């Protein structure tokens, strides 16, 4: 008796030891290496980098291993690590027009300079379990082609040349860093984009899907989806010019959306934009749709009361680390709150019973 709150420290230590044992699993099965996770579970690694906001495949792989494959837990590990890192400076904006594309498709034009490049995609695979993978097999030789030497132009540039798509005004103001400044509303587009790019893939996907089903429908076409490597450059004050400090893999999606125009403005297409670390195209397309839905006010559209139009709703709930922490905190003891509710309910029941008795006595 009266043991429930005792021995917390030992219980925690033991729980953690058990967790470590479970993580390793059956000792007769070979242990996963970080390299194996990085190379063979690369899309999981990409998701952890994207939502963890840290481009480091090895760390992401380590986080996946440590979290037993629970990707939100892995993202959490990366985020907690990321906050401790010193900041040396800010890189220049990456030039996605210079991307070395592994994949580049457009749903709006059959062909365009740079062509349609399918790249390593699940699209058009038949989703049949491949039992050959259950056995260890030799790699099949893959045909290779020369990469394109010149940059691949953005599809929307062709529309912009004809003035058929809205031009995004260039804005050189330094964007707010949502990991260094508290969120406030209304938020500008750069702030929204930061929140969405690290937002939970499932949440952003569902919101995007809801716009397609009519909750603030905006008729999106994938103008272009491209995946590839871009150089990261940084100005070095001591040198006085920018140097390459590395490269990152990015997925970029630009949607082309309907806009009927108004009395004063001729009809023109509008844009939604998604940019995410790694090969993460489901997320990038979703982000573009939600970005577009959130622009209703700027583009003079109606507030249809749809969830995807509601900036405060979207941005304050898209972060899965915030969401999972707060959701799971209800596992923590709430004896005190519950006790005070219990006392109140008892008191109110007592008063109700007394009142009923008094009424009966009066009759």
């Amino acid at each position, binding site marked *: 008796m009266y043991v429930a709150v005792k021995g917390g420290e030992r*219980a925690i230590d033991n729980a953690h030891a058990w967790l470590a044992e479970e993580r390793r699993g059956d000792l007769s099965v070979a242990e996963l290496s970080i390299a194996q996770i990085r190379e063979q579970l690369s899309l999981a690694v990409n998701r952890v980098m994207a939502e963890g906001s840290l481009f480091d495949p090895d760390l992401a792989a380590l986080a996946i291993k440590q979290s037993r494959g629970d990707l939100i837990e892995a993202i959490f590990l990366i985020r907690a690590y990321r906050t401790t890192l010193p900041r040396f400076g800010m890189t220049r904006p990456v030039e996605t027009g210079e991307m070395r594309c592994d994949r580049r498709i457009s749903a709006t034009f059959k062909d365009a300079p740079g062509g349609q490049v399918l790249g390593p995609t699940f699209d058009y695979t038949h989703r049949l379990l491949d039992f050959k993978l259950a056995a260890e097999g030799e790699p099949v030789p893959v045909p290779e082609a020369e990469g394109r030497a010149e940059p691949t132009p953005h599809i929307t540039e062709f529309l912009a040349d004809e003035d058929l798509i809205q031009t995004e005004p260039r804005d050189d103001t330094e964007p707010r860093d949502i*990991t260094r400044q508290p969120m406030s509303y209304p938020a500008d587009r750069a702030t929204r984009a930061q929140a969405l790019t690290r937002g939970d893939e499932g949440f952003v996907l569902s919101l995007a899907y809801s716009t397609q089903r009519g909750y603030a429908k905006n008729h999106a076409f994938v103008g272009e989806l491209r995946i590839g490597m871009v150089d990261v450059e940084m100005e070095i004050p001591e040198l006085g010019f920018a140097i390459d400090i590395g490269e990152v893999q990015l997925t970029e999606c630009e949607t082309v959306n309907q806009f009927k125009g108004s009395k004063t403005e001729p009809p023109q297409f509008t844009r939604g934009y998604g940019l995410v670390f790694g090969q993460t195209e489901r997320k990038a397309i979703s982000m573009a749709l939600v970005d577009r839905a959130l622009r209703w006010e700027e583009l003079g559209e109606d507030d249809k009361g749809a969830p995807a139009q509601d900036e405060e709703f979207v941005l304050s709930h898209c972060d899965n680390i915030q969401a999972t922490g707060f959701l799971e905190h209800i596992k923590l*003891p709430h004896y005190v*709150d519950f006790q005070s509710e219990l006392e109140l309910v008892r008191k109110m029941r007592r008063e109700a019973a007394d009142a009923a008795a008094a009424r009966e006595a009066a009759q």
Partner: protein
Amino acid sequence: MSVMDEYNFAYIDEQTKRMIRRAILKGLAVPGYQVPFASREMPMPYGWGTGGVQVSAAALTPDDRLKVIDQGADDTTNAVSIRKFFERTAGVATTEETSEATIIQTRHRIPEVELTEDQILVYQVPIPEPLRFLEPRETETRKMHSLEEYGLMHVKLYEDISRHGNIATAFAYPVMVNDRYVMDPSPIPKFDNPKMEMAAVQLFGAGREQRIYAVPPWTKVVSLDFEDYPFDPSKADHPCDLCGAEDSYLDEVILDDAGNRMFVCSDTDYCRSRREAGHEGRLAAETMA
């Protein structure tokens, strides 16, 4: 000594601590006002005390003695976890004795022993906005605070009485601070509300919601009520079954399948020190066995 040696004192880097301290000072200057701050991602989940931990980390010095309680108890799992975190990252002395501590981080309780002007009480806050359940939008609630439009808060209390005959809020009972800001005292039982006019500095940290607020020593803190339905800081109508205290907040423990119960102090340090001083409750003899 440990893997945490590579981190800064109390985990957070000094620049971030300065940012948090500025928010704390602003909070102290405007009692009850929720100061936005750039909450960092901590190595424990949001909702588990990240706000309190950041405030404690910014307030801690190497000479401090830290006490951490959850539900009033030093040995509940989350309290143990947070205390361990600071033992590892700051190497500060810790204590379970309320009067010995210089900083007390708490979740859901104010200690029974009266705090002194040399102490800081740091609350973990899940939802800092007292108006949140009346109005979900931050843009709206901030406007309500800035314009001091608190009619809606009293409408809620009015509705409680008209429906239940009582103000049906038992914890996180809203208070008016310094005649200006309506504030959420965090989910402490309303029994603790009157203690908030105290000698110690009270700091509130909400990590996920990125807010810090504060109540300086001896600031006026009034629990909202009606003249004819005054605030009632009630608790279970029992003495503690272990130490016999009649003035402490009690947890109810179910003892057996027959539903027998015992009531014990939720403040474990208070209960222990009373028993050490020779006080005995109804079941004291049995539990010693």
